[in-house]
């Protein structure tokens, strides 16, 4: 028992009526400017990607050889056209659907894997924990780009397989964060209290421990989206990812390489989209890290 907790114990009833940990976290998040900016950008991006292609009067696959390489903003093509005369904006939005979908799905899969591994390792500790965390370390040691490309070279690329490949290289960070958090909470008295009641391991892990790791999990998941979007861009840029004519931000960049001098906008816009999405998710992650800082609630 530290003197700080003793001091806190004798303070008069600090009643913060009706403030759940969640509403206090939201209060802290709102004060984080970059995170609010990032959230705004992502919101706009998601809406644009969903509704933009329906509104814009262009077909992303429509080839119009007379209007090739129209520089922006020209002929109603706000972002210009590509080497086949296709509208770049609508293609960017269609590509955004693919890239963001892969980003989110890869995040969900790697968070599920990482959380399961982390909770199991943190709760059981001992041999089980050591073996699991050694596996995490081993996978982490492997350069992830190499792993990504090695896997992509052998597996036929599709949205699903690319998602799974990215998830397979991205769950370790979540596992580490979760394991550390669970291990720190494992021997708290409230866990002992649950065990004293005959609670099963599953109950303790899912009901008692997991909610206390929600903060770090959400933060890691947000950063994982950024990482996954970047990974997709990387793989597709190198030609192992999403294949033409389906557009993703990565393969649009790949395609733009040949025209860097003559039509730089073909590279600039997809590059900007990737940067915007990735930095926004990173900002949100930072904001969430501050907002959900476990120390603020765990006394």
């Amino acid at each position, binding site marked *: 028992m530290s003197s700080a*907790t003793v001091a806190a114990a004798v303070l008069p009833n600090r009643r913060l009526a009706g403030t759940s*940990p969640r509403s206090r976290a939201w209060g802290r998040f709102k004060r984080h400017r970059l995170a609010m900016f990032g959230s705004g950008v992502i919101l706009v991006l998601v809406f644009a990607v969903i509704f933009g292609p329906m509104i814009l009067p262009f077909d992303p696959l429509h080839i119009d050889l007379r209007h090739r390489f129209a520089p922006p903003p020209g002929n109603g093509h706000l972002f210009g056209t590509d080497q086949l005369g296709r509208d770049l904006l609508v293609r960017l939005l269609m590509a955004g659907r693919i890239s963001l979908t892969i980003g989110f799905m890869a995040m969900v899969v790697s968070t599920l894997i990482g959380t399961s591994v982390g909770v199991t390792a943190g709760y059981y500790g001992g041999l089980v924990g050591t073996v699991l965390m050694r596996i995490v370390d081993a996978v982490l040691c492997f350069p992830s780009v190499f792993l990504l490309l090695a896997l992509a070279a052998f597996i036929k690329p599709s949205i699903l397989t690319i998602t799974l490949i990215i998830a397979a290289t991205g769950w370790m960070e979540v596992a580490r964060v979760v394991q550390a958090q669970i291990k720190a909470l494992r021997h708290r*008295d*409230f866990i002992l209290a649950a065990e004293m009641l*005959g609670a099963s391991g599953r109950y303790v892990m899912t009901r008692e421990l997991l909610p206390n790791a929600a903060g770090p999990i959400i933060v890691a998941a947000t950063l994982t989206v950024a990482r996954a979007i970047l990974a997709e861009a990387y793989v597709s840029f190198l030609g192992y990812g999403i294949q033409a004519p389906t557009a993703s931000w990565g393969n649009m960049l790949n395609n733009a390489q040949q025209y860097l001098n003559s039509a730089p906008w073909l590279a600039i816009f997809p590059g900007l989209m990737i940067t915007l999405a990735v930095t926004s998710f990173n900002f949100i992650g930072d904001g969430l890290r501050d907002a959900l800082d476990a120390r603020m*609630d*765990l006394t």
Partner: protein
Amino acid sequence: MSIMALTPPPIPRDGPLLRVDRLRQWFSSGGFMSPRLTVRAVEDVTFEIGRGEILGLVGESGSGKSTLGRAVLRVTDLTDGRVVFDGQDVSTLSKRQLRPLRARMQMIFQDPFASLNPRMTVGQIVGAPLRIQNPGISRSEVEARVGDALRTVGLADSHAERYPHEFSGGQRQRIGIARAFVLAPDFLVADEPVSALDVSIQAQVVNLLMEIKRKLDLTILFISHDLAVVGHVCDRVAVMYLGRIVEIADTRTLFRNPRHPYTEALFSAVPVADPSRRRQRILLKGDLPSPLAPPSGCAFRTRCRYAIPACAEAVPPLAHIGGGHQKACIRDDLALQPAC
């Protein structure tokens, strides 16, 4: 519905509620590459607690009180020895086999901040025992019984929706007490239940505990280092030193006529209000020896002012000296200072 109504009719049985027989609880660390170290946190402990009795457990920090409390509740796997609860040997029961017994034995923790899950509402915390023990229980019944329990400990029904951080230390401890009593147990381990609280609210919480004890006819193992509280609430007191019980007697006998030098030293460290009766303070020399390498013979001999060479030879057994008084000291010729 009061908490009384939840109490199952007492089954009249003979014998003590809890019997502990040559209990050992060791912790090993190291292993494969590093040298294996063994902490003998509880070593060869034997005692009983009668039905409805409060047994105090005192001793310096690190003497193994909490470990003993957890071992008798079978939180840990015992290294050796037996724990018999209400006639049933629970020493080797598995987690699953222990589950139905869990409703009958509960614990109150020292730290009111670490013992409540910060992500759960008070209602979820106090309701958890009911849900875990009877998975089919209805929501309304949980709510009703949680409300009862909260009112019994001096809180309101409406507190069920709040989170632990909204409460003061004393209120949190009341929540912990409500959780321990919602299943109406028979046996309770209270591990320093008030030592983290402000002195002004300690008495309130102790009184609440005693009130509930009377209602439920509880048996309590009351761990504390506050001899004043122990003297006030306990029927009998056991003194622990370096993993062993060195003296045990009913409270009045122990305070008036301590027979182990360590007990005398503990008493002398307590300040006396009345200056005309000032005692000689016996300072304990040095620190508690490491439980990794306890001294040979009597473990207290490195700090005992009455030690003689024979004390190093064998561990003095906890011997009966009449009237249920037991002590583990080879010297019978000592005139020790009482506590009062």
